């Protein structure tokens, strides 16, 4: 299988046109770090975007950055950091689950991944302002814009975010960027059971403390943390992150400790420890070992998070909550019926890590109502009528 390495959108377009004429199909790859996400793809060829690399435009006072889709995320993050800015949705570190490979901007957007700050800053899709892409009509199209506020035409950037490459090959992407918080503190509360933690998270997320991340990790899972305070606690850990200008963070941390310390022991993480903990939480890393266990991500109404976690535990799974209960990470051996459990709690599940054989056999994405599934098939048709891109990645046979 020859690797195809186009250098610009025109070459991508030529390849797509030829692939269509030849009846070939394409797997689209950036750094390859997310190849294991979604269903296994059976494409005849791989299109690599590594040569579509480089930042096109970045003006810090516009809060906007445009880069070619194959640009390494590390390069973008380093440049933003130099200017005191970042991608506010906190791109998660997927390496513990999905293995190595340098993540690219295109891959991040295609999978619509966000980390713990999603609670406050929104998902990746909320930060994608514009795209240029090659469709399954072998046309270069652009949509969205390079300014932070725009309603001109349909929001195709959002549609491409989370499409897993199945609608077209993104060649350039414009992202909204934001100032990075000047200071960060994480307050830990020890020893709460799931129900108590659930109510406390509801209260904090509704309250005036403006927490930027809120997670609950049961005892056995917390014991695997690389952060000493968490691993050594010998109890469950609820973590609340406060970010912003220094004086504000200190005042809110005080207020949080006063409120939380009334009923349970509390501790505080700074700098490195705080960052390490949220990195572990962000993409299920606390559940990474043993590697043979399937790992799932569930999205549920936040107030149902604690109950959903308990139901999973009763079914023999292990897990923890992020996003104030709205995101549940679970490691569950077969045959725990994770999709059913998620649905019973008003949410959906996605199989995030499992061997390719299992991802081909088990439903990776939540089953959809027939009318919605039919609409999605028509949308796929509208962008890729010949099924050139990522066959099978989202739906078997599509």
């Amino acid at each position, binding site marked *: 299988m020859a690797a195809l390495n186009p250098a610009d959108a025109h070459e991508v377009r030529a390849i797509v*046109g030829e692939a269509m004429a030849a009846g070939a199909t394409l797997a689209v790859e950036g750094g390859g770090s997310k190849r294991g996400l979604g269903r296994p793809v059976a494409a005849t060829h791989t299109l690599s975007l590594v040569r579509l690399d480089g930042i096109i435009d970045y003006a810090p006072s*516009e809060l906007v950055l445009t880069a070619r889709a194959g640009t390494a995320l590390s390069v973008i993050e380093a440049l933003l950091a130099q200017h005191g800015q970042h991608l506010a949705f906190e791109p998660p570190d997927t390496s513990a689950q999905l293995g190595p490979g340098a993540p690219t901007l295109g891959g991040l957007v295609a999978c619509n991944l966000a980390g713990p700050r999603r609670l406050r800053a929104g998902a990746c899709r909320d930060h994608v302002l514009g795209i240029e892409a090659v469709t399954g009509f*072998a046309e270069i199209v652009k949509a969205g814009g390079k300014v932070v506020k725009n309603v001109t*035409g349909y929001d195709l950037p959002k549609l491409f975010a989370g499409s897993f490459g199945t609608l077209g090959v993104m060649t350039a992407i414009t992202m909204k960027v934001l100032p990075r918080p000047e200071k960060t503190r994480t307050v830990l509360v020890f020893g709460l059971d799931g129900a108590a933690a659930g109510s406390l998270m509801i209260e904090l997320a509704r309250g005036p403390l403006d927490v930027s991340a809120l997670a609950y990790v049961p005892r056995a899972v917390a014991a695997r943390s690389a952060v000493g305070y968490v691993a050594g606690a010998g109890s469950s850990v609820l973590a609340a992150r406060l970010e912003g200008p220094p004086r*504000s963070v200190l005042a809110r941390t005080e207020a949080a400790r006063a409120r939380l310390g009334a009923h349970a022991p509390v501790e505080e993480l700074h700098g490195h420890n705080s960052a390490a903990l949220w990195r572990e939480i962000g993409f299920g890393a606390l559940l990474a070992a043993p590697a043979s266990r399937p790992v799932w991500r569930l999205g549920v109404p936040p107030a149902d998070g604690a109950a959903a976690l308990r139901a999973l535990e009763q079914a023999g799974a292990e897990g923890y909550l992020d996003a104030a209960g709205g995101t549940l990470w679970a490691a569950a051996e077969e045959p725990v019926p994770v999709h059913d459990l998620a649905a019973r709690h008003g949410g959906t599940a996605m199989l995030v890590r499992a061997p390719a054989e299992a991802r081909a056999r088990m439903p990776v994405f939540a089953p959809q109502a027939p009318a919605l599934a039919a609409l999605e098939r028509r949308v796929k048709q509208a962008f890729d009528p010949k099924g050139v891109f990522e066959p099978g990645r989202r739906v078997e046979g599509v």
Partner: protein
Amino acid sequence: MPAPDLAVLARRAALVARLRSLVPGEGVIADEVGLRAYDCDGLTAYRQVPLAVVLPERTEQVSAVLRFCQSEGVKVVPRGAGTGLSGGALPLTDGIVLGLGKFNRILEVDAANRCAVVQPGVTNLSVSQAAAPHGLYYAPDPSSQIACTIGGNVAENSGGVHCLKYGVTATNLLGVELVLMDGTVVRLGGKAGDAGGYDLLGVVTGSEGLLGVVTEATVRLLPAPATARALLLGFTTSADAARCVAAVIAAGIVPAGMEMMDKPAIDATEAFCHPGYPMDAGAILIVELDGHAVEVDELVERVATIARDGGATTVRASADEDERLLFWKGRKSAFPAVGRITPDYLCMDGTIPRARVAEVLERMTALAAARGLRVANVFHAGDGNLHPLILYDANEPGQLEAAEALGADILKLCVEVGGVLTGEHGVGIEKRDLMGTMFSDADLAQQQRLKCAFDPDGLANPGKVFPTLHRCAELGRMHVHEGQLKFAHLPRF
């Protein structure tokens, strides 16, 4: 607009009778006087009486009406409160207006999940009012919020003065129930995140009624900020004010709102409601900071310092809630205030890079002068979203045409400097024919292919947004590019 379907017009009486059977009672308006009330939206320069107005009360009725219209080839124009400024709800002579006014209930305020489930005809403001007892609110706050509906907000992806920090409708929308033209009901998103699947919620938001009818929405509620303070900043010129905006952002501060008014807008509002704006200023900024009290006080100080360093001639920080509201009073009445000094005005809505604001304001003044007109500016400076108000008199022959031509000049200028045609009001019919300045034929064809996936017969609000209508079959046909783009140096399949 698309040429009227004469066959539909000829069958009007029979169609109305069938619609009455689908939505009994007062649900169908077909008399001349009744129809007049629906002949335009907020873009009042364009008027058209529809075939009929249908006012369903339940999703099943919407579904039945749409299915019927699809089978009869009747066009459908959804309508909320009719405050839209781009003609999105402008009726078609051979189409029905589907009014969502009777979908006016807040179904649930779910405080624990920080969201509300509402019907589309609910007004924007009433959502925040219902959430207030729980210490929550709905962040997008268009100036029209007492009147405009959530359905209209979803369809236009509306913003407001606070969307700089809290985002537009799309950021604050969790789910919708959508009825397609064939009557199918789908639910997109909901109280839980990460539903997987394509982000169809994302494309329905801002789709201007061209993809289907929203019959329910789940919106995110945010905790009411502990404190809010505003700064009133005066500058000698708009250019100074614009530089201050960029400096605040560059300093890492994203205020809750950052609004600008130029001299003509200041004069009009001061005369209208006396908010106490500095009369020696060529431009003012209102900068609001919200959050924890300690944070707000710190940021107010920092912004004040940036403003002074940038040559501000007035720097006033609100000492209490009354003063904060007074600062906002003028901004909030700017539209009616401008309405007092001119018989008519057109409100434009481009977004540009912040760095180009000063230059664009200057060039805009020149463009206006060239057409013999004046412009007042009151806008969301923080996100570069301009709202030039073009002052004109419709009774003076040629002035409406001149005002529209100036509007087009201004929007082309926005695109030229790297901006877009519309930041929050939508394309509608107003900017439809300018779409080609921003998008290529291929871009627009692809957008229309997406519409075809939702509405294969092109009956949902046709004639809006897209300058040229294509049949779906034509758009879907495989075409010339295939296999004709061979680059010799690329590996072969």
